[in-house]
């Protein structure tokens, strides 16, 4: 699964990463846990409620079930222009 990170997380984890998603990782919440295990230094940032997940240019909730073919983007709070 393709994952994109923006802002501070992009600097910490890399702007784009591909992860092998095990069958038990189904939702956005599951995906956060998996990513936190893969990137322990960023685990605090990855668990923040202010970090929003975005699929197909729409913000999705924690229970959104992610298909393996989808790209998930993680947005820290916007800084604005």
């Amino acid at each position, binding site marked *: 699964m393709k994952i994109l990170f923006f*802002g501070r997380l*992009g600097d910490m984890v890399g702007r784009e990463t591909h992860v092998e998603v095990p069958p038990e990782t189904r939702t956005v919440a599951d995906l956060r846990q998996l990513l936190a295990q893969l990137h322990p230094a960023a685990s605090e940032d990855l668990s923040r409620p202010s970090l929003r997940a*975005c699929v197909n240019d729409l913000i999705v909730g924690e229970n959104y079930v992610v298909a393996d073919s989808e790209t998930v983007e993680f947005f820290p709070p*916007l*800084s*604005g*222009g």
Partner: protein
Amino acid sequence: MRHSTCLASDRFDPALELSTFLGQLSDEGGIVSFVGVARPTTRGGSPVERLFLDHHPRLTGRSLEEVAGAAGDRFDVSALRVVHRFGEVAPGEAIVFVAAASAHRRAAFEAADYVMDRLKTDAVFWKREDAVDGSHWIEPTDSDRAERARWSE
């Protein structure tokens, strides 16, 4: 209402933007413009080497369009222009240019003011300030949020 937005990768000349904007007008009497310039120092006073505006390939441009369109719906303006940089911006360079034209100067002032307040909180950017004493990511200030809230119904 005509509006146009531009997400600019390279430095631009705000005076040239104003010149182009003025050249496209017909009978509007008042034009208000705003230029936002990258500051040379952090809030703490350290020299800034560069500003980095991380952006989203689609949502950032869409957020500029949304703000410009909302300003056009809300105020009696006949033309509106928004230019916003992304990527690396050097201190002293323009980050943002907004221009609004109207037969009524009050509407032009309010539209430009509104666009800036909205952009400061709602534009899809993540800003990092690279200063001599380190880099840090910026979030909207309470004052930005308060300005934004002025326009809520």
